[in-house]
């Protein structure tokens, strides 16, 4: 059963929830079994609208990626450097898998919970391949109750190998 191990309430009762078709949420849904999180890399700024046009920066970070533990990669039969699709209740992105010891499975409530991490720096026009997109397509459109700072650090996803 869905249980919050930190608080009696499942979610913050004053968190803003918008009722559009994109505002679907899933917690213990078997379709989205892994925790997703997002972050930045040094080479790009925000959605990359300025940095992706800089050849030296795109040279160093050319593609959308998703980082995962060796354990999850083994479970999903994903090789380091392979292209994968990451999906949430709201959207999907393609990414290159980075299999790394820097990610380790969590032990939550006696069960193993896997986490994956993605940057949100990629999008249209650059790189010209047209295959790289932003992790913002996956993240929920909610924020903290006072300032609406977006909640992009914890959401549920699935990762599958691209056929």
């Amino acid at each position, binding site marked *: 059963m869905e249980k919050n191990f930190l608080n009696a309430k499942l979610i913050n009762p004053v968190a803003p929830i918008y009722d559009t078709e994109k505002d679907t949420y899933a917690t213990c849904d078997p379709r989205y079994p892994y925790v997703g999180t997002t972050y930045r890399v040094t080479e790009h700024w925000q959605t990359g609208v300025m940095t992706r046009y800089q050849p030296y920066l795109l040279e160093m*970070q050319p593609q959308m990626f998703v980082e995962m533990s060796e354990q999850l990669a083994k479970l999903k039969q994903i090789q380091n450097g392979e292209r994968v699709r990451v999906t949430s209740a709201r959207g999907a992105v393609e990414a290159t898998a980075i299999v790394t010891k820097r990610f380790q499975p969590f032990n939550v409530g006696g069960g193993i919970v896997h986490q994956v991490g993605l940057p949100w720096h990629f999008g249209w026009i650059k790189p010209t391949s047209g295959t790289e997109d932003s992790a913002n397509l996956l993240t929920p459109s909610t924020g903290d109750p006072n300032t609406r700072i977006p909640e992009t650090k914890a959401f549920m996803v699935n990762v599958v190998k691209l056929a």
Partner: protein
Amino acid sequence: MAKSFLIDTTLCTGCRGCQVACKQWHNLPADPTVNMGSYQNPQDLSFTTYKLVRMQEHVTEDGLKWLFFPEQCRHCIDAPCEATAGEPTAVFTNPRTGAVLYTAITKDLPAEEIIESCPYNIPRMAPDGTLAKCDMCQDRVDNGMLPACVKTCPTGAMSFGEREEIVEMANSHLMMARKKFKNANLIDVDTIRVIYLVGFKPELYHGFAMASNAEIGITRHMALQRMFRPFKRAGAQLMRG
């Protein structure tokens, strides 16, 4: 005594400012890259990449470490590539700075042999056979400026100056690093001008981080090259008329 670098990898955060600064100063194009399952890119040095931050993840005695190795030409004090080339108009050492420099005339030399002679696997060849690598930012250094990579380093991992001062600095950085990393060491400090301080075994960073034992000193092949050099040069001059 000429110049030297200190690259203290224990202070490097892998930001790659040096990698970009190098390309920018030398007006080199970005290499086409794809993500190969690592943050490191490009995958290797090239005719248009003189500086590359290599990245490795290893579980060490101190736990998981992400090791960064900002690689470049070591500017050997007695450079095997210069001896192998045996042609001072193509490969020579600038006596003021100690920089080992390549010119466009490298195109006329056996590139594979020169690349093979480098204990650190640094020189890279253009399709037309011209060789290129780090030039110690000769133009900047001659005008009293720091090399672009050193100038841009935000953490103090890279230093540049008179060799005597840099070797002294390397030893004091080593003393500090040993407090945190018991296996910290300087790589090939007596034979090269780019002194790396590493916190772990050099081979964990990169296969060519340190010259292998077999390659230290002058090989038989190089000694022969050296012996025949005056004749080769005289011959070349005759050919040119």
